[in-house]
């Protein structure tokens, strides 16, 4: 009879466990069947009143029922907790189509992209980076570069003056003279990036402020072949391996011979198109062998040393590389423009 009671108790408990649908209701079931005040506990405390021969089997039956109920509750509890967690997580669903929190890098004015890249190229060839002041002495900007006062070449470069002796440098070439002065006759291999100024009205292709990278190599036995190879390497790194350069005779007061360097047009490959005005080539820089007078004036013996120099317009490189239609865009800083240049190279 007692066993039958136990069986009923177990069945009732298992049913209630089965019916429990929340952690709270399951805890209530646990309380009903397993607490000290539960029927199972009171049955357990009554064991002593049973005849000794029944005690053992009844005790075993009691234990079996308790284990069964406990196990069922634990299993159900795990199930319910998981279910409730899943339900909670399901309610936390987010809209994954919203954009990420921004960890974008800033945009760069393409001027800097080009400048940094050009510096890298020449650093790779063992050049050092030199610099000089933007407010420059006439001496360095002109005189020591074989452009004495009243030299007609001064008219090629309309100059912003501060006074008779000071001006805004019209090119980065004064750094040539400054470097030669500092190196006192030792070999030189430098580039100098920097801002330059000319008294030009701003329009789509002219800017009163622009920038150049000056290059200067002085050593024994330097010739135009070295200039050509160095600039060829530069042009290929800058504009792609398929680019070829060609030299044209030109004139700068501080180099002799002087050349203009063209690359074959990337757009048409040299056949001639709008971009290269039908010529197949685009002018990218001016260069030449350092004029013996310049070497002499700056403390180098032209019988012993020779050198080459070049000047590349940074703005011009940016305009060519990115197809920028108006140079003023480089100085306007519209963030919609700047943010187009985030790619790291």
């Amino acid at each position, binding site marked *: 009879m007692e066993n039958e009671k136990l069986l009923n108790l177990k069945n009732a408990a298992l049913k209630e466990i089965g019916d429990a649908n929340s952690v709270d209701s399951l805890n209530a079931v646990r309380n009903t069947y397993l607490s000290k005040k539960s029927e199972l506990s009171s049955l357990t405390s009554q064991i002593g009143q049973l005849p000794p021969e029944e005690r053992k089997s009844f005790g075993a039956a009691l234990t079996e029922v308790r284990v069964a109920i406990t196990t069922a509750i634990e299993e159900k509890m795990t199930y319910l907790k998981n279910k409730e967690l899943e339900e909670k997580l399901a309610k936390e669903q987010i809209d994954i189509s*919203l954009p990420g929190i*921004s*960890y974008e890098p800033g945009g760069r004015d393409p001027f800097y992209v080009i400048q940094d890249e050009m510096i890298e190229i020449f650093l*790779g060839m*063992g050049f050092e980076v030199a610099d000089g002041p933007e407010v420059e002495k006439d001496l360095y900007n002109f005189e020591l570069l074989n452009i004495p006062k009243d030299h*007609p070449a001064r008219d090629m470069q309309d100059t912003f003056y501060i006074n008779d002796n000071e001006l805004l440098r019209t090119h980065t070439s004064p750094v040539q003279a400054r470097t030669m002065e500092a190196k006192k006759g030792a070999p030189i291999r430098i580039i100098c990036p920097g801002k330059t100024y000319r008294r030009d009205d701003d329009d789509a292709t002219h800017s009163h402020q622009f920038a150049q990278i000056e290059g200067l190599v002085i050593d024994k036995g330097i010739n135009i072949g070295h200039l050509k190879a160095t600039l060829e390497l530069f042009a290929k790194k800058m504009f792609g391996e398929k680019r070829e350069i060609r030299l044209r005779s030109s004139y700068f007061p501080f180099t002799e011979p002087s050349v203009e360097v063209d690359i074959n047009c990337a757009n048409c490959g040299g056949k001639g198109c709008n971009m290269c005005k039908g010529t197949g080539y685009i002018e990218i820089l001016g260069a030449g*062998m350092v004029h013996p007078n310049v070497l002499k004036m700056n403390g180098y013996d032209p019988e012993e040393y020779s050198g080459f120099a070049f000047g590349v317009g940074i703005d011009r490189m940016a305009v060519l590389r990115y197809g920028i239609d108006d140079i003023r865009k480089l100085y306007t800083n*519209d963030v919609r423009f700047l*943010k187009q240049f985030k790619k790291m190279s």
Partner: protein
Amino acid sequence: MLVSLKNVSQYVSLEGLTPEDIANKLTFAGVEVEEIVKLASGTNLVIGEVKECVAHPNSDHLHVLKVDLGPKYGVTQIVCGAPNARAGLKVIVARVGAKLPQIEIKDGVIRGEASHGMCCSLLELGVDAKYLSDYQKAGIEELPSDAPVGEEDVLGYLGLDDVVLNLSVLANRPDLLSIFNVAREIGALYNRKVTLPKVELKEDFKTKLVVGSATNRCSQFSAKEIRGIVTKASPKWMSEYLMAMGVRSINNIVDIGNYVMLMTGQPLHMYDADKLAEAKLTAQDDYEGDFVALDEKTYKVIKGDIVIACKNKPMCLGGVMGSLACAVDENTKNIYIESASFDGASIRHTSNRLGLSSESSQRFVKGTNHFQSEYVLNYAAKLINELCDAKENSNNIVYQGEEHKEKIIKSSVKRINDRLGTEFKESEIVDVLTRLNFEVKDTKDGFEVKVPDYRLDVTCDADLSEEVIRLLGLEHVKSILPCLDTKVGMLSLKQQRLKNIRHYLLSQGLDECLTYSLVSKKKQNDFNLLHNEEHYVILNPLTDEREVFRTHILASLLGAASYNVARQNKNLALFETSNMISKQSRSEHLAIVLVGQDIRQGQLVKENYNFFHMKGLVEGLFTILGIEPTRYRFERFVDANHELHPGKAANIIFQNKKIGVLGELHPNQIDKYDLGKTNAVVLEMDVEALLDAKVSETKMSPISKFPSVSRDLAFVLDANIAAGDIVRAVKKVGGSYVINCEVFDIYQGANIAEGKKSMAISVTYRKDDATLTEKEVSDAEEKIKFELSRNFKAEIRS
């Protein structure tokens, strides 16, 4: 410099060469051809005569013409709209199939009348409108009555069958401002014979004129007298030629002056001999006073200007402009022609000062051949005899202030090849130099070269190497990478640090800007945050917007921000680094502008930029440079100029010097820069000291194996006590156990007395070599409480 190929071909054969060939060859030899201009063009042209002209039945302005095109094409009907169409007129007819610059002529019917061609104006043949009269532009061209009907070489008949090259003559080649020298250049490039006019002139009388120079600025002064001239219009060939050269035809005398200058490069001046007070002209540079020029305007002449004076009165502003007093006019009978050499610098000063730049003055400025005057005078005289019916030529009188020295340059095949990186043979080099009219003579150790007088640019053997390479072609130069000492190509520490700063800010999402260094005075004065250094002012600015060399970036960067805000780009994080230069110093600056909301955010969570965003960037910047927080500090910024928010700004102090200022922008500045209803936080910093700062190598410090303990402390104190001072004090008195102290709450308001604030801090304690005991922590905490109560009058709440 405009060069007519028809003209050049008189002196050197251009047979078999297209204008494009010549342009290309010149360009590669360093004489850039900017443009190839055909004066006029058109196919299927013929000269016709209008036989009949009747009004078109269906039009109020068209005519129906019967035009005789000569025996080959007969009479044809053409509908014509020109107002000057009439019977008897000789006209240019473009037949069916003709290709004109703008159109192609087709057979057609115009309002019911057949039209088999078109009568043309010169405009329709592509002649530049500036050379045409309004009458010529309004109707068809009226040919002279003797024009040959049926002639098909119409452009040849008109003298318009020419191609003009526009040469960009660089400063080293002023000799190319002469057609004769261009012919020599082309002759050298193609190795063709050049034949220039030989001028032999009979001397009819000796002139009484005396010329001289009282200044070394006129090194040569030659003249010739010609009697019995007649001033009139130039012949057709002359006026047509000058038109092609972009020079207006005036009269025979003026035109000859211009023509000779174009041919020889030597500017001339003509004086009416009968208007001079005496037959003596002297160049001088000490005249001061008024000068009435040919253009009837009065100019102030100062010392240093070269004048040609007669009885101490200026008759000509040398190389710039003649005087009205002795100008050649229609009544002139006898003239003096002047061919002189003036100092380019003087001419440059005078012509720039007076705004009188001309073809003549430009030639003097760039440099002329000082040793060809007699040839030039004779050449001019010959033309004057031919075109001005002149009767008698005088001898040439010459003042030569400088000795004619031959220019000899020593060089060798090796020296030339060494410079060029080429392997030219001696014969090749000699051939090139000879073609260029250099006389080459072998010597023991190479050769000597005599340079022709007109090649002012060739002075040393580097110049010879250029002549060789530009004629033989730069394609002969082999590419050889220089074999130099191996060096590690790298940036200097300073350059690398600047790059690191830029890349740090980029990685934080800030956009890197580029603004102009020249700003207006007003913008320069908008901020005076850092130092009181004197800025440079441009002597000759283009506009007052670009008048001052800035000493700070901030105003420019705010300008960029303003530009963006006006274009609905409202949330901005901008920076720029730039080299600043003032009369006192030169240093690298950094400016940052943050506007609107933090760009580093999600779409749903937004926060306005404030002081602490900027402060965080500055702290990060010090961190990446390896500068410990103990080496710099922020001090409250005291603003007298309403530049920044008085309560939300700080100075950055490094090595006991103020190197930067950061803060929220003063509302007045926000208005001034049209930033709208927004907030902006700005920074201007002189980073030079940071780039130079000594920084120790990083050494690893061990991480403690023992646990740390955190205790919170809340207290009330005077509202004006800075949290930073509390933190510093806690760290100081807490001793080595205190490894961190953070403020986690500040409260003012209900339950806190006016002028007070409640602050809560969290202090972390740890010992490096053992676990802290409860007593050690409590002792340290007591010391902190004592310090706060005593020195900060803090009332401890827990």
